[in-house]
């Protein structure tokens, strides 16, 4: 236990609020709806039975989906770690022109709707693509797209901690004769473990529940548990089997999360964090220049090519090029509100979702980081579960559960709430490692000097974690901009978000509809990059510097 019980009444109230607010939020908007729909699914007329589980065991296609889900998630996570680690290092340790722009830009893929990225990859991985081999409908297409989507998670989560590691530790190791590889393996890697574990757990969750990428790039032969839940629910209304699959998915994800949480408890080390600005420096010497520009070049090509394909397609007019698609966005076709309105809707929902996620998430992170009890460990796992729960389960859960005491089932606020559920884990995951690394002694010193806990938090913790809060806010905003699954259940037709509008346009024949969808995707990319850039530029005094 890291804190003393204070007799101060205000701090007790604060502490209760710290527990009550995130817990009520999660309880009412996640646990209760999901438990309701699973209850309806599994406790049919005859009460609970295991028949749905044995039905899964007896169907080869479902067994195959479960196995595929697991192994592709493991493979995708490992691959993403390996591919993105050099960039995490370069972004953490070196300063170079345009760095903050690059860092914002790499987050763009993360929010793009899969139907759009899928279109880009089907073009790139086809026989006429730059690779020259047809990877469409293979496992490789799925793995490549998963790395594309999750690259930023590793770069930012691992890089976020790496940027604050005291470089003198590594310098000392080098001075004592350790080579680069050995220094990395024996000094940096152990210190980075909390962040690597955090990033891996997020990537694993995302790929474990992969839906659009598997459907679009994998063709009809690959299927994940997530895809099967959707199929069993929407096509067959086989709620028992869908419910049983959802339970299996939750169990699988929980066990990974519990393992992660145990690991984090054991492994996290307190260390002296340094301001990022002191750690990063310009590359020196040919090797470092080659490393920095090589990594940036690869990152640019790998993430930029699919994005460039989308931009290129948005500019097609007949056989030539032009801005026609963008000019027409303001006009209401017979079918839709003007597509441009979706931009405003998305920005509004994303701001609300970011605010909710930041408040609830920071409270939860504080609880988890400073109050290491069994309860807070379980709470940590609970917070992550929405990431691993199928959008269909959450959407149907809202429907069956949120009709009393007030009927929220059709309320617009449900959209940012659903987005916040998915964004909170990112806020928590970026904040907790930094919070845990804040030295207890600093805090104790403040307390000994007579500062009440609120002031200790404000003046010692907050400046140290502010940077992590900004990163979390950026992720929350971006996630809300790109969320599609749950939104499609609850967004009103006259207030579509960008992904919903893109999806609608892509559902119609006609070249202009396609180029408009690509134009909206390009705008979504731009909006993401700009907003992340703006959020990270945001500073209060010198707080943002850390």
């Amino acid at each position: 236990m890291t804190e003393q019980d204070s007799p101060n009444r205000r701090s007790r109230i604060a502490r209760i609020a710290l527990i009550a607010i995130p817990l009520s939020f999660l309880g009412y908007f996640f646990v209760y709806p999901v438990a309701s729909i699973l209850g309806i699914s599994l406790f049919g007329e005859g009460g609970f039975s295991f028949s749905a589980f044995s039905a899964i065991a007896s169907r080869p296609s479902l067994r195959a989906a479960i196995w595929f889900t697991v192994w592709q998630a493991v493979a995708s996570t490992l691959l993403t770690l390996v591919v993105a680690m050099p960039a995490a290092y370069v972004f953490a340790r070196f300063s170079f022109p345009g760095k903050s722009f690059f860092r914002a830009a790499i987050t763009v893929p993360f929010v793009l709707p899969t139907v759009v990225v899928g279109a880009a990859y089907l073009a790139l991985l086809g026989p006429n693509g730059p690779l020259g081999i047809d990877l469409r409908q293979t496992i490789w297409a799925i793995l490549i797209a998963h790395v594309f989507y999750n690259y930023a998670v590793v770069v930012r989560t691992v890089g976020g901690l790496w940027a604050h590691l005291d470089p003198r530790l590594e310098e000392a190791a080098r001075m004592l004769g350790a080579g680069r590889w050995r220094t990395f393996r024996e000094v940096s890697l152990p210190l980075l473990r909390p962040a690597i574990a955090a990033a891996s757990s997020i990537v694993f969750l995302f790929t474990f529940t992969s839906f659009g990428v598997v459907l679009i790039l994998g063709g009809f032969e690959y299927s994940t548990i997530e895809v099967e839940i959707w199929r069993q629910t929407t096509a067959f209304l086989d709620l028992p089997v869908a419910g049983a699959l959802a339970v299996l998915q939750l169990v699988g994800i929980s066990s990974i999360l519990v393992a992660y949480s145990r690991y984090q408890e054991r492994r996290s080390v307190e260390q002296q964090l340094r301001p990022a600005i002191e750690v990063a420096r310009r590359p020196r010497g040919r090797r470092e220049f080659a490393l920095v520009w090589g990594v940036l070049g690869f990152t640019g090509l790998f993430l930029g090519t699919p994005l460039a394909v989308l931009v290129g397609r948005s500019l097609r007019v007949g056989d030539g090029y032009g801005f026609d698609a963008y000019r027409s966005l303001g006009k209401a076709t017979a079918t839709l509100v003007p597509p441009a309105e979706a931009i405003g809707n998305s920005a509004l929902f994303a701001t609300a979702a970011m605010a909710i996620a930041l408040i609830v998430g920071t409270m939860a992170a504080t609880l988890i980081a400073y109050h290491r009890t069994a309860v807070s460990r379980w709470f940590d796992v609970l917070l992550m579960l929405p990431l691993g729960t199928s959008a269909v389960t959450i959407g149907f859960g809202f429907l069956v559960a949120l009709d009393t005491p007030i009927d929220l089932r059709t309320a617009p606020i449900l959209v940012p709430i659903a987005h916040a559920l998915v964004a909170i884990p990112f806020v928590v995951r970026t904040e907790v490692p930094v919070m845990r690394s804040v030295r207890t002694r600093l805090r104790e010193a403040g307390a000994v000097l007579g500062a009440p806990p609120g002031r200790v938090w404000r003046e010692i913790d907050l400046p140290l974690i502010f940077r992590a809060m900004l990163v979390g806010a950026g992720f929350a905003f971006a996630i809300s901009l790109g969320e599609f699954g749950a939104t499609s259940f609850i967004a009103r037709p006259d207030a579509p978000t960008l992904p919903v509008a893109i999806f609608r346009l892509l559902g119609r024949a006609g070249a202009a509809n396609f180029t408009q969808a690509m134009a909206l995707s390009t705008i979504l990319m731009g909006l993401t990059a700009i907003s992340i850039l703006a959020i990270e530029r945001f500073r209060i005094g010198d707080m943002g510097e850390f």
Partner: protein
Amino acid sequence: MSAKNPKRSIRRLIAIVVLVVAAGCSDPATTTSSPAPTTAPLEHVEIILMTHDSFVVSDELLESFETETGIEIRVLPAGDAGTMVNQAVLTKDNPLADVIFGVDNSFLSRALDAGLFAPYLSPLLASVPDELEIDPRVTPIDFGDVCINWDKAYFADAGLTPPKTLFDLTDAIYRDLLVVQSPATSSPGLAFLYSTIATFGENGDYTWIDFWTDLRDNNVLVTSGWEEAYYSYFTAASDGDRPMVVSYASSPPFEVIYATEPIDEPPTAVMTQGCFRQIEYAGIVAGTEARPAAERVIDLLLSTRFQDGIPLSMFVFPANADATLPPAFVEHAVVPADPLSLPDGATEANVRLWILEWTEVMSR
């Protein structure tokens, strides 16, 4: 929370959980989403119209309807057609909506069996062709046909004759040319599977399974959804390499209306044999407390002022024969003479098995 007294903290936690759960569990009978019943025509009534996510209606129409009748229509999207029906079935005891639109013939028997709808015969049904009417509990609003589309330029350049029937597709000259969607994940994909079952049957010398075996050997490509089949593989709409795709009979006029540069002729054409007809219905939710207003909403959906807008907003043809079609539809849309269908309830009873059998054939 203090580690010194874990019991107290756990008790506190339980109290919170109980509070939260209690807040969410008050008697479901005390609130309903339906407004109070009314008879006076201009008294304000709210009707919730549940639809699939392709439904579009203009604000102007909704506003003028409200001015005339006092009925405010709130549109509630509920995912794709299948998702919507299942949501409605699931929330049957405390309905989300008063009127549901967009139940198609594949899902109709599920909705009817669940007792979702109460009978209503709109006076406007007089203008609707008899073959669209199926059950007094639901009102046909629109219909569309799922057909093979082909790329005119590709066939002209290659000097190929386009196929005329489904069976032609198994001919070796059409090898590598067709892209279809999986019936397991796509609505037009499922309609196409139905059209092959309606054509070749389940018994006899050459069943639908034989047909799909031949199609597979002719290297048909299967995608999960319509979007990637049309916009990533179909030569007329992408850089892809498949000049034939399963799409809609209304796709060619859309290519004209939504061209990036004005064109006179669509780049695509429709194979008019082997089309499967999807009919979309609306119905009044059984037990709605706003029955008279709900009837007027059904009448609105069937009136020409809504029906006229259907082709451009939803891809499909209006059920009301008095509706005016847009010029591009009159000129470029084809309504297949003999669309295929399956007996009522056959799809509901067999869809699982058929998809399973299809998957087995195609995965070999």
